[in-house]
């Protein structure tokens, strides 16, 4: 029954997060700060993961397709579809759930246990909105860009490593990537990603905001933030795939 308690409290927190802000200019500044720290700060890890992921997918596809009946450009096509449909939006988001989720829960949790949140409340600040709203909006705004970059880099990774290992020729790969391309798939991926961004930031903020105790509990909250945001994320991945693709 504990789960209902958490879900209820989560939505109560959200209602506070989305209540009218005190002063919009302050929130605008906070938004850009968060775009910078959550978004730009994640660029490096997204780039590295994407290049390697693309390379591995390409090599695996080439390995699986070693049959005279399948044209070689299919490697490019398979790589593209796996990246666009699942690997970039879901896997990269999952990894960011680890990075962003733990940092959000750690930051807000520390503010809670060192009474910084109480200090805000005493001043009459809506601490939930001040701390959480900019994070949610910033990540929902920036994550789609990160994912587009990820898709792009993953295909470059696939091309470079596919060619270097002799799995495909550049011409076949590029042809495959463009073959029967459906823009709707990218749209579908980006819709998913916006939802994921909301899940990661709100679930992690929830765990940080209701931290009780000391440093040990802040660590626990970070762990919970990552675990629960990942689980909820995967559940919505399934749900949205069914809704948007089926």
């Amino acid at each position, binding site marked *: 029954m504990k789960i209902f308690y958490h879900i209820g409290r989560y939505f109560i927190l959200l209602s506070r997060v989305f209540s009218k802000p005190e*002063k919009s200019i302050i929130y605008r500044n906070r938004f850009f700060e968060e775009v910078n720290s959550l978004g730009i700060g994640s660029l490096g890890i997204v780039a590295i993961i994407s290049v390697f992921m693309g390379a591995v997918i390409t090599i695996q596809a080439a390995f699986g397709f070693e049959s005279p009946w399948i044209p070689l450009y299919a490697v490019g096509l398979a790589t593209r579809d796996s990246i666009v449909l699942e690997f970039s939006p879901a896997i990269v988001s999952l990894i960011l759930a680890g990075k962003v989720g733990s940092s959000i829960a750690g930051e807000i949790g520390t503010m809670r246990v060192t009474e*910084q949140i*109480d200090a805000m409340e005493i*001043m009459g*600040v809506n601490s939930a909105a001040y701390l959480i709203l900019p994070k949610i909006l910033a990540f929902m705004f920036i994550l789609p860009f990160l994912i587009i970059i990820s898709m792009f880099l993953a295909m470059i990774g696939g091309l470079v490593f596919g060619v270097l290992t002799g799995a495909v020729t550049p011409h076949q790969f590029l042809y495959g990537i463009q073959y029967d391309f459906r823009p709707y798939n990218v749209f579908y991926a980006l819709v998913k990603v916006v939802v994921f961004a909301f899940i990661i930031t709100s679930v992690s903020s929830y765990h940080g905001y209701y931290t009780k105790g000391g440093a040990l509990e802040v660590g626990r909250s970070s762990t919970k933030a990552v675990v629960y945001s990942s689980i909820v994320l995967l559940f919505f991945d399934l749900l949205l795939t069914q809704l948007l693709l089926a």
Partner: protein
Amino acid sequence: MIEAINLNKSFGNKQVLKNFSFKFEKGKPNLIIGESGTGKSVLLKSMVGLLELDSGEVLYSGRDFLKMNFKEKKLIRKEIGMLFQGGALFDSMTIEENVVFPLSLFTDKSAEEKRERANSCLQRVNLENVNKLYPSEISGGMKKRVAIARAISMEPEYLFCDEPNSGLDPKTSILIDELINDLTYELNITTIVITHDMNSVLEIGDHIAFLYKGEKCWEGNKQEILHTDNKELNDFVYATKFLRNFKDKLK
């Protein structure tokens, strides 16, 4: 003036505050003293609404805080400055930003005016050239002073201080006490100070409540506290052997 009437608060089946009543007077520091764990911080947090009381009334100049709706509480909170036991400075902001923070959210002052106000508050607590530093870069005593500067930046009517001098050397403690004392008289505000430091009590204890196991079991001032025959309070005041011997000799 703040009036606390019959405050009760428990966590689970552990009653922390028992029928606490006290009049916190305007224009002088009101001290709450007592051993560690008697519920002093809980009392303070309950009075400002960070913890929910089980029963009782808290009257801010006659206005019952607990009966207020969310909006009215928010208005009262703008009249409250609070100093937390751990300082509670925002560690992602510089010292200046900490002091400016409430001003940015609740006033329409220009950046220049805000900086001036922050500087005058920091000067008032004898801090200079720290504006651009982060809380992690200054000492514990300085943090307390920054917290005081932040608490007074909005010109509060009510100032709550939770152990403003814990963890400080006796000399710095006295400086902080004097600062709080002077500010209280200067601004003519209602100040509540929690402490278990006898030095502070003797320095600024014009109006004292002694809390013992969640109950107020004595009230008075610094002259009276040395000559009380309340047993618990005596144990608290004359905690060391040295002081007990000293007292016996005086007799």
